[in-house]
């Protein structure tokens, strides 16, 4: 109790200094939390991927399509339950900054994605309308779109202006699911290609393959790829997660830089905090020597310094952690849909606590050791 009283009073002895240090810690812990959340958001798609889905693409590159004839052959592989077609459309809605993913998909595509929840009536309406499309809830909310609206897209890969009618809005089964994409009928795209660019008809971007047992993913992948070995379009089959991660890997260096910056922020505040604690301990050398003179041991003095450092870090870090979720919500809003999943994970919160704790301990080590070791006579002389 006495120790706590002394820690509290020492911590707020120089109010301005303490408040500035707390503010620094707050900003550092908050920045760390936001940067970690950015990294998490980058991986959100991959981490939400199902282990029961494989993706088969052209082994040369994603830019090269596969023939439609592969579909039935893939379906014949042991362990395969469903095969759906998907083509990246890459259209522009109003202006390029309004980017969102668009896919031309076969009608069984949604069967492979039980995490997308669509009402039966809307699904039926979509299947009835050749120009119908499905959009996710996040996308609908972002642009204020609703059922029956016409969604015009300017094609970049597939030229022309394309108009789709929104027939369904699907939700995610939970908050971690990204629902910021649009799907429309692969047949509509293919028929248009037959009329306008025959050479590009009957081509599939990727096949999404449903399997009966995720444990057999590797074997099924090998068997699919074996079917097309030495053909004109060899395939590469991998899990959906590996497929998603290959996109994330393209921005590996950016993510690494974000990670480094997040830790640099913590290191900087650690240095600031260590300086504050060293300054405080130096100013109180004579007081600590007096306490030693009266019979208080080095361990008590070390506890005083560690207690003060941890208290300041707990206050600054605590406020920083408390502000992370609202700041993340604001960040998500300001980012304009670049990060559809931008929620602070439990792991990030734990890391923030660990960082604040580490700063508090690291900042106190040197002053505590120095104070514990100082000779009383030298310490008392510091008053003069």
């Amino acid at each position, binding site marked *: 109790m006495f120790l706590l009283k*002394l820690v509290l009073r020492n911590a707020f002895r120089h109010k301005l200094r303490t408040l500035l240090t707390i503010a620094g810690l707050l900003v550092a812990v908050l920045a760390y939390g936001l940067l970690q959340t950015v990294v998490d958001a980058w991986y959100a798609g991959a981490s939400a991927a199902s282990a029961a889905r494989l993706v088969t693409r052209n082994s040369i590159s994603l830019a090269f399509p596969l023939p439609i004839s592969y579909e039935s052959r893939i379906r014949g592989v042991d362990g395969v339950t469903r095969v759906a077609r998907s083509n990246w459309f890459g259209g522009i809605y109003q202006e390029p900054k309004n980017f969102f993913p668009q896919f031309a998909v076969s009608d069984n595509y949604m069967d492979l994605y039980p995490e997308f929840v669509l009402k039966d009536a809307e699904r039926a309406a979509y299947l009835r309308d050749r120009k119908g499309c499905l959009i996710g809830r996040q996308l609908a909310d972002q642009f204020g779109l609703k059922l029956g609206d016409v969604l015009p897209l300017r094609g970049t890969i597939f030229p022309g202006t394309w108009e789709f009618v929104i027939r369904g809005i699907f939700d995610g089964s939970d908050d971690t699911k990204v629902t910021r994409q649009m799907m429309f009928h692969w047949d509509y795209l293919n028929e248009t290609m037959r009329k306008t660019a025959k050479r590009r008809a009957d081509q599939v971007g990727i096949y999404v393959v449903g399997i009966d047992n995720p444990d057999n993913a590797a074997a099924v992948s090998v068997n699919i790829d074996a079917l097309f070995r030495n053909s004109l379009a060899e395939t590469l089959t991998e899990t959906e997660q590996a497929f998603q991660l290959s996109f994330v890997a393209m921005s590996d260096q950016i993510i690494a830089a974000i990670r480094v910056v997040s830790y640099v922020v913590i290191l900087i505040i650690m240095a600031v905090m260590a300086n504050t604690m060293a300054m405080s301990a130096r100013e109180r050398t004579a007081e600590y020597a007096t306490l030693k003179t009266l019979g208080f041991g080095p361990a008590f003095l070390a506890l005083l310094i560690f207690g003060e450092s941890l208290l300041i870090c707990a206050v600054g870090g605590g406020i920083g952690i408390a502000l992370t979720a609202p700041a993340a919500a604001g960040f998500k809003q300001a980012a304009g849909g670049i990060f559809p999943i931008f929620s602070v994970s439990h792991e990030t919160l734990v890391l923030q606590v660990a960082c604040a704790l580490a700063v508090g301990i690291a900042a106190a080590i040197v002053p505590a050791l120095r104070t514990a070791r100082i000779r009383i006579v030298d310490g008392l002389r510091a008053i003069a």
Partner: protein
Amino acid sequence: MNAPLAAPLVEIRKLAKGYVRGEQRVPVLSDITLDIQSGDFTALMGPSGSGKTTLLNLIAGIDKPDSGTLLVGGQDITRFSESELADWRAVNVGFIFQFYNLMPVLTAYENVELPLMLTSLGRGERRERVEMTLAVVGLADRMKHYPNELSGGQQQRVAIARAVITDPTLIVADEPTGDLDRNSAADVLAMLQRLNRELGKTIIMVTHDSHAAHAAKALIHLEKGEIIGGVERAGT
């Protein structure tokens, strides 16, 4: 027939202490032999650098000699480890410093209570003792004041209360009037005399103020680390 003399409270034999400055060893005290009786009020006088504060620090157990023996209350404190010395000081020695050395974040009451935090006394007993001691030094009405709300003389009286709160065997005072005006200094000296006379406390005081030194019963002159002319008794 004379009654046998009681053993001195402080027995110092051939005590030496020096400091290393660069590659040179600078002697501060050499060959000090001295006895201080229980209940004595001794002033250590001498010019700056004569070694009086060093001698006081050695007697109080906050510094260690290079050689010689130093017995306080029959215990050779030179053989104590740092933690044994800390425990010994907490029980046996009360400290009064020139600049009071009060904790600025604690009130007068809390400063006086500080040494009692190392004892097993309960809160009620501590309160009783602190209030009584602050009343003895005339600061019963200033208990809740922080050091910066007190005058120099008042701060030194809080320091005196802190020094006696554990009822130590020995009180050491390093220039206790050095930072005070004449009236406050007189008050502090009168208080030390009362502690010595009425409560029988053994006091060793370092001073270079001859007026302060005359408040003591015995006077020891130090010069260049040596005792000059033995112990002068008041009235001799």
